[in-house]
């Protein structure tokens, strides 16, 4: 973001600028831009004022951790500063389309995980949910559950990224962890899980069995941590 701020400060139109991870070639020399959190903050503040929805689009775009779209993001931000939130409708523009599509994909997974995340109760009464999403969606997820499961103390772990969110009933904290082993579950936990599996299998109408539809709605990559799909 600070690189984008620097380019936009130098060249508000930024039509001809290209942004990429530094990689000097024989013929072209890039301009190295130092990371500058203050400039990044200032740019964010400007966008927030000019185009509040665009801030969300950028936030979700970042969650996708996509490489190679830096220039598109630069142009998108420059356009947003001119046109405001309306820019998200300019889908026939390649750079807008690229940024908005990536953001939408991350947004979809964040929404999906709101449903698919499973909490398990540990011996000490705290709750633990593990996941391995494609996008780095732990922030919006944790925010969602801090409003929903607000009287429970819980952790959400992104196993692949080794990141964690913790809610203590009052405050949300984010951090990373080096090593992790799941602690023992509470005695009651096994019983409730068994009841959920009973419900899951009896709620399906046998005459309408349709595993293909099930998989297309709920891809198998999410089954690893689903209580109802253990052992499949």
């Amino acid at each position, binding site marked *: 973001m600070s690189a984008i701020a620097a380019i936009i400060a130098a060249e508000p139109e930024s039509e001809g600028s290209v942004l990429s991870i530094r990689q000097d070639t024989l013929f072209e020399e890039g301009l190295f831009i130092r990371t500058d959190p203050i400039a990044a903050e200032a740019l964010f503040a400007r966008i927030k004022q000019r185009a509040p929805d665009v801030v969300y689009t950028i936030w979700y775009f970042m969650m996708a951790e996509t490489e190679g779209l830096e220039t598109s993001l630069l142009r998108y931000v420059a356009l947003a500063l001119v*046109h405001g939130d*309306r820019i*998200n*409708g*300019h*889908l*026939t*523009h390649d750079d807008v*389309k690229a940024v908005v599509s990536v953001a939408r994909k991350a947004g979809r997974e964040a*929404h999906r995980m*709101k*449903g*698919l*995340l*499973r*909490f*398990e*109760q540990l011996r000490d009464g705290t*709750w633990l*949910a593990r996941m391995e999403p494609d996008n780095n969606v732990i922030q919006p997820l944790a925010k969602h*559950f801090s*409003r*929903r*499961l*607000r*009287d*429970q103390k819980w952790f959400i772990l992104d196993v692949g990224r080794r990141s964690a969110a913790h809610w203590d009933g009052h405050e949300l904290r984010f951090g990373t962890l080096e090593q992790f082993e799941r602690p023992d579950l509470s005695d009651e936990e096994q019983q*409730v899980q*068994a*009841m*959920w599996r*009973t*419900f*899951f*299998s*009896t*709620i*399906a*109408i*046998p*005459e*309408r*069995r*349709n*595993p*293909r*539809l*099930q998989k*297309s*709605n*709920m891809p198998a990559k999410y089954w690893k941590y*689903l*209580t*109802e799909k253990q052992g499949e």
Partner: protein
Amino acid sequence: MDIQEKLGILSGAARYDASCASSGCGREGTAIRVGNTSQGGICHSWSDDGRCISLLKVLLSNDCRYDCAYCVNRSSNPVPRASFTAREVVDLTMEFYRRNYIEGLFLSSAVMKGPDQTMEDMVRVAEILRNEERFGGYIHLKVIPGSSPELVRRAGLAADRISVNIELPSAESLHRLAPQKRKESILEPMKLIGTEIGSSLVERTLSRKAPKFAPAGQSTQMIIGASPETDLQILRLSQGLYRKMNLKRVYYSAFVPVNDDNRLPVLATPPLLREHRLYQADWLLRFYGFSAEEILSDDAPDLDESFDPKTAWALRHPGFFPVEVNRADYNTLLRVPGIGPISAKRIVAARRFSVITPEGMKKIGVVMKRAKYFITCSGRSFEKPDREPARLRQRLLLGDGGEPAEQPRQLVLPGLLV
């Protein structure tokens, strides 16, 4: 009987209820200890039949005194019977909710001693959840036909959504297949709910503290294929329910033969394609500005199996097309096969920046496979105007290469969108 066994019986008995929506209202507040609802609804899993699981869908009891021909729980069926206590349902809901298995509870029931006693027990479950557990998640209560107005009111105050099943598409069929249920005992609570929702909305404009009555609205469900009504009759009924009763959703449930009964048709499989076409037509009623009479007529009273109802309408109205995407208004764009509300909105937004080209249409996400026969971009058409309906039908069915195009046979119960 232990709770696991009860759950097996009472969720198995509830699976023929189609609704799984958990959307339609946002509930937040400090009087709530756990739980909230989400405007768009959230699916938590998908069962082996591919339908979404959003709510703990159970019956309070399957011990029924009625003997409806189509129902698995009818009194003459030799099935195991069980009943939950209120506390058991409350605990199950809370335990499942705390683990994020569900958005909330969808409680229905067989008619035990009588409508009022059954309804009272169901309402009590919802009231315990709200008042003792201070549960802020989603609750959908089924209203038992013939319940007293007072209980219907209490149900509406505790639940997000309430529904009365209309069961069958006509009074004659109801009389024949569910002789103990009367049309009036279904329509009266429906009307009452409609009135209460309306007056609650008015009161809330005057005072924000006025209680919410069924803030996610009213829905209903009918069985398709167990009785002889045409699709036109069914769509007219739905249209009336949307327009006059202000219903949020009508659900269609393909008849699954669970009983031997000479009043019922013999079917090899449930009429899933018909159910799917009815949902598509229902979408046209609610989001596309179509009327039942535009979709079907007395001469052709049933939906086409080969084409979705919008494409079928387009084929019958060649004079309406081609539509110029750079000029047509939103409602006209909505009539084009392959353009839905999302693409239509995107087209309107995108053309404020520049003229839309054929490539632009693809970027916007229009299903060009179908749309290309019906549109122009700045006067340019994509296909030679193929006005001969028979040939166009053929091309839409078979695709461009003469290969059969993939049939839009996604047999889904669209539960999430209200």
